[in-house]
């Protein structure tokens, strides 16, 4: 593939400053079961190439799913035309420094291949999950699904880049809805497809799967008869499967440099962070240490290079509460003069790279889960995101969870349904009062981070410990 793509680049007829091709082959296999019947069994093979050309300081692109030599050659001409047509109106005059020469490989860690489970075996496991979720007649719906992805990417350029990366991804989910008359309650395995990781079928079914299935079914029924979360300001303790969403929405997105530079203002929105805040702003409590880390083995958004060839490294975004670095790739770094990271990423061959999260993790502190709860006189503990909404500057948010517990006098007591909370981002992170240790740290992922024009969904990973926040407004649902 490298030779074929390199030959296309070297024989190009346009007088560009730089030409690059990112070719992608993606094989996805997916199975979904509902109420012990098959919903879908699908496989998807896709391929295509993103051709980028730099001319007159402007990048132009042309993407095609026709991988013939003539089609790619035509795409180079088309991308050159795009760059020239736009260059008089360019938002910034880019240089080749935005596409440095890079060579190397990255392959996801995996012990088993993606063919290790046959479609028949996968269906049988998911059917059994649905069966086991139905712990009582109150269970109105059971679902279980699993997807595997084998994604190969080749990146070549006119300045000598040759990068090969291969992602093996497993995404799994199960959940149930319990119903009693007009009351319904959803309970899932840490949120929709939150069990998304890089690896092979050694990840599923894991050793604790059947215990988790039983617990999800039982907790759905338990929630039917639980009290509503009370309306008050109190200490809020979040489990790692909700911290994932909290980090994503109120740290990840506001730190994206393209949002701060204004690219996203018409769609996803801007940010309350300004360029001059980097290096000086106290983002939150001194207990707060946040890293951009695409080097964590098995986390969903790990890679060796981003989609423009920047080498991926672990970097602190926030250290001891202070904002150090933005989530911006080489183009945003040229435009903003703010330190960034290797995060120019595209959802596939048919979209250009933009600033994205990868793995954004909250580093562990020094408290066990028992320590955290024991230190709280009154509070609410919440698990598993079920609702999320935040404003376009990433300021005012309201998040809802599936499962809550009342904390009284240092102990978890009654189960609570419909636990929700709302706050404002800086105030919330400054209220961080306890950070769990490594024993409380868990990693989850999501394939559904949406952003960009044209729109793109991309995979991100988030690792976090259990955390406690002071004086947060919590509330429940309709009685």
């Amino acid at each position: 593939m490298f030779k074929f793509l390199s030959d296309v680049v070297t024989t190009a007829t346009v007088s560009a400053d730089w030409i690059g091709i990112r070719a992608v082959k993606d094989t996805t296999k997916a199975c979904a079961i509902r109420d012990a019947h098959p919903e879908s069994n699908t496989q998807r093979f896709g391929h295509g190439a993103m051709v980028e050309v730099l001319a007159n300081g402007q990048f132009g692109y042309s993407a095609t799913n026709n991988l013939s030599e003539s089609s790619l050659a035509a795409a180079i001409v088309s991308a050159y035309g795009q760059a020239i047509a736009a260059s008089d109106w360019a938002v910034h005059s880019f240089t080749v420094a935005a596409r440095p020469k890079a060579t190397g490989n990255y392959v996801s860690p995996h012990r088993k291949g993606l063919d290790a489970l046959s479609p028949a075996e996968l269906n049988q496991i998911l059917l059994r999950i649905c069966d086991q979720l139905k712990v009582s007649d109150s269970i109105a719906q059971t679902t279980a699904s699993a997807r595997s992805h084998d994604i190969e990417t080749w990146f070549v350029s006119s300045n000598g880049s040759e990068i090969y990366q291969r992602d093996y991804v497993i995404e799994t989910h199960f959940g149930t809805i319990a119903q009693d008359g007009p009351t319904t309650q959803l309970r899932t395995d840490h949120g929709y497809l939150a069990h998304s990781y890089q690896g092979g079928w050694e990840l599923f079914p894991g050793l604790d799967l059947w215990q988790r299935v039983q617990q999800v079914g039982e907790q759905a029924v338990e929630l039917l008869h639980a009290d509503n979360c009370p309306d008050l300001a109190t200490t809020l303790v979040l489990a790692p499967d909700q911290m994932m969403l909290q980090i994503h929405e109120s740290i990840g997105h506001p730190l994206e440099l393209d949002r701060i530079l204004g690219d996203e203002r018409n769609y996803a929105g801007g940010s309350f962070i300004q360029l001059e805040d980097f290096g000086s702003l106290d983002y939150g409590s001194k207990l707060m240490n946040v890293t951009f880390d695409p080097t964590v083995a098995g986390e969903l958004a790990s890679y060796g290079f981003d989609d423009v060839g920047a080498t991926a490294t672990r970097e602190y975004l926030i250290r001891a509460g202070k904002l150090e670095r933005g989530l911006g790739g080489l183009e945003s770094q040229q435009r903003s003069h703010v330190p960034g990271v290797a995060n120019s990423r595209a959802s596939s061959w048919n979209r250009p790279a933009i600033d994205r999260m990868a793995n954004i993790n909250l580093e562990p502190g020094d408290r066990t889960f028992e320590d955290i709860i024991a230190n709280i006189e009154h509070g609410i503990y919440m698990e598993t995101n079920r609702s999320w909404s935040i404003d376009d500057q990433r300021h005012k948010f309201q998040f809802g969870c599936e499962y809550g517990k009342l904390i009284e006098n240092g102990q978890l007591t009654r189960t609570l349904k419909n636990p929700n909370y709302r706050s404002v981002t800086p105030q919330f992170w400054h209220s961080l009062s306890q950070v769990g240790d490594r024993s409380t740290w868990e990693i989850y992922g999501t394939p559904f981070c949406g952003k960009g024009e044209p729109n793109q969904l991309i995979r991100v990973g988030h690792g976090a410990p259990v955390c406690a926040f002071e004086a947060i407004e919590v509330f429940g649902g309709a009685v």
Partner: protein
Amino acid sequence: MTSAVVVAKQLAEKVFGELADAIASHLAGATDFTLSLSGENSQFTRFNRAHVRQSGQVNDGNLLLTLMQDDRTASATVPFVGEFETDWPLLKTALAELQGMVPQLPVDPFLVLPTGSATSRTVHQGEILAVDQIASTLLSPVNTLDFTGIYAGGLIFRGYADSAGQRHWFESTSYSLDFSLFDPQNRAVKGTFAGNQWQQAKFLDKIDQAKHQLTMMARPAKTIERGQYRTYLAPAAVAELLHMFSWGGVGEADLQQGNSAFGLLRQGQRQLSPKFTLQENFEQANMPRFNGYGEVAPLQLPIIQQGQLVNSLVSSRSAKEYKTPSNYASRGEHLRAPEILTGSLTADQILPRLERGLYLSNLHYLNWSDHPNGRVTGMTRYACFWVENGEIVAPIENLRFDESLYHCFGDGLMDLTTFQETIPEIDTYDCRGLGDSRVPGILVDDFTYTL
């Protein structure tokens, strides 16, 4: 449009037909299939501060082959480039893999086999901007403004064929411009502009409207305390609420499985206003009427009529499972051509009847906050104003709302406007979207703001 795109447009329909014929000739009589095609030749030009941020073209297409045999089924997707000699080997390989896979799978008791003899062909011709005209045409009139957004245009095509002999083709050459204008205080107004024929005069008029609205944003912003206020939601804001009807809303499967905000409406425990009527209306929709089973939806289908849930969206799969007639909804049972009927509120009466409260042009980032009770949270966005004595007083700092659809379209619904606006579907996740919604503005009493 480039010459390569013209060739692709001419060949795609022909090659798709040849591929469907080839599949049919390779399958024995006991096996059914459906073959769907989705493709586009699209231009995307992205703007920031009245400059071009990114510009490019995407030529993409995918074939979805579904095989059905002995009450079992599986599907495969492969690329489509519009050349039989390129596309057939991949499709043939997928067919062979499905033939090996389907017998391994569990029986699907709700499998929908292709039946009927429906055929259709719809072509929406278009005249849109050439690549080298886009930047200058769009940016020259706004070069002194903080203009940001995206132009997307080109050919979109959809095809369907099956073993029963049904055949459908849909193509549309269209564009959409989705933009915002910002003032130095970072306050913004929003505009969308879409169609099949680029109309420069209408574009300039749209920009002038946005500029005028932006001048109203220059007044000092008013901070509104949380509470309940009478609120006017303009059509674009209503369209955001309408999206919620397709996400755990009026689909039959969601209603049956306890996953709907309108379960209480069906059970008679909650009511909507007799002023509220929602229907599917394909009369003017830029959207295929055929679904993934090759079925053609009725031209009109009432969903909520004068507050009563008279129809859910029922796919043929749900029809089989729940033993109720299909109304040829899509597999996902989401609204494809929604329309909310108008009321009696004339444009000049909006502010007087609002009297004191909030005028909201747009909403942002909606999600269920209490799904079974139809409660939705989200943010105000863009041109939103505080109104006193029937006059706009000041723009507002953005507010979070948390309110039930049973209130917005139920006991809180004071009136709907006498006019509708067509809100184009401008999503471009994976591919450019099709369709639009036709919605009026609504006046709601005691709309709840929480942060």
